[in-house]
């Protein structure tokens, strides 16, 4: 954990941290990290495949065939505002 990572995490989580708190947090994670690293370093993971999902599941795929089962009108029926086939949203300033 470095200061920049902590600053960003704080910003993303809307946290206001004092300098003392930041030092404590960094020291806390540094200690845990070195402990964890020491434990992990003794394990040989060279033959272990990366886990991509907690369950042995995989997706099904579909063939590349185009179809159009929905109409624009049906999809836009609940829209607050449409115009000439477009959805309308509050103006986005570029």
């Amino acid at each position: 954990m470095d200061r920049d990572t902590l600053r960003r995490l704080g910003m993303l989580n809307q946290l206001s941290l004092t300098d003392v708190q930041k030092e404590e947090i960094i020291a806390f994670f540094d200690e845990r990290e070195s402990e964890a690293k020491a434990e992990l370093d003794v394990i040989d993971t060279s033959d272990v495949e990366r886990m991509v999902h907690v369950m042995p599941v995989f997706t099904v795929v579909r063939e590349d065939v185009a179809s159009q089962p929905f109409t624009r009108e049906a999809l836009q029926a609940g829209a607050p505002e449409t115009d000439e086939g477009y959805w309308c949203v509050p103006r986005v300033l570029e």
Partner: protein
Amino acid sequence: MKYETVIGLEVHVELATNSKIFCSCSAHSYGAQPNEHVCPACCGMPGMLPVVNKRVVDYGIKAGLMLGCDINRTTTFDKKSYYYPDLPAAYQTTQWFAPVAVNGLVEIETSKGKKGIRIKQIHMEEDAGKLVHDIREDTTHVDFNRTSVPLIEIVSQPDLSSAEEVEAYLERLKTLLRYARVAECEMAHGTMRCDVNLSVRPVGSNKLGVRTEMKNMNSIEAIKRAIEYETARHIDAVENGTEVLVQETRRWDDIKGKSYAMRTKETAGDYRYFPDPNVMPVVIDEAWFESMKNSLPEFPEVKRARYMQEYGLSEYDAEQLTKSIALCECFEGASAVCGSPKDATNWILSEIMNLLNLRQMTYDMLTVNGKSLGELILLVSNGKVGRANAKKVLSAMFDNPELSPEKYAEENGLIISNDTGLIDKVVKEIVASDPKSVADYKGGKEKALMALFGRCMKTLKGNCDPQVLRKILIDYIAKV
């Protein structure tokens, strides 16, 4: 101090599939009405689940193999969150943790020689929709036709160091992806777009400078101009302190020739990537992987060498033909039918190239099939259709790839006539109408004969064996 430019590219390529990446809506929105190709899934309506299009994964694997990558045999999709009206679900389904292809290498060639550009990864993802700002002043109009159209993003390492190298790299990507038939890669059509990450550093330094990104560049010329401008701006800032460089996204204004700050650059944390719980991992088993490997085309260099050895083509001709897989297919098909690789080459590199230029078409837009071209070449070499009329047939073949050259020539009176009576009649008329040329020819001016010959051929609309006409003409002049 001398500086070097450090450039990494993120290239988005639209895959040439029929349907979108996670739903069955058509992936082709060109010419469509707004929101014509949409459904609850690509509109981000609650509860709709994505179903992966197999061909997208096929093309991701093929692109990875073409660019020398390792393929992740279990590849996963992740959510990238950002809030903007062109993204109805408020997240983009993309790949972050296990992209389909990693660690590739693309070799480019510039005036300075050959160089390898490392590919960090290729990931599959969905495109965003399109916003229209100029219909009304008070709203932004949203079109979701492009939403969920499949893309691959090819991320290079920062191995490029000049506009020339960037151009060579992009051209190489285009060639390889078009060879594999996975994408059109036409920047003018928006099927290839490029983000340029650039920084400068003193020559010899290993430390990267402050990086800026220019997004969605869509022409190679604009990219080259932007790189030159940004390089100069960065060096000026570093050397003379004209401004403080910050990591940010910039917009390139090609008309003004300047870049402008858009926003401070996001980092991965801002997007809150996390595994998409709606799409399970895609497992590429051995059979699938092998079938993709076996479907790869011959690489351009290998094809070029084979053309020289097998067909006896010159290096120049082989180089020209192998610029495009469409030209190669036309050449191989035509050679097989007409039996003359040299004739096939000449027709492609002269007449077909001319027509492509006239119609402002790229090589890969060629629809003339090799078999038909071979049949046309045979009609000419067998003396059934004159060269000038054969060009007319070829032009018609551009409009209708299914057209039979012989049938078209017959239906349009382009077959050479063996009617010597008709030729005699035309020769008599032309000779009688131009006594001066006749006298000039008899006086030793060979050009005068060519003038008479041309007029006869024109009157016969080219439907005449040139050798037969020439003999009849010379014999007749000798008698008058």
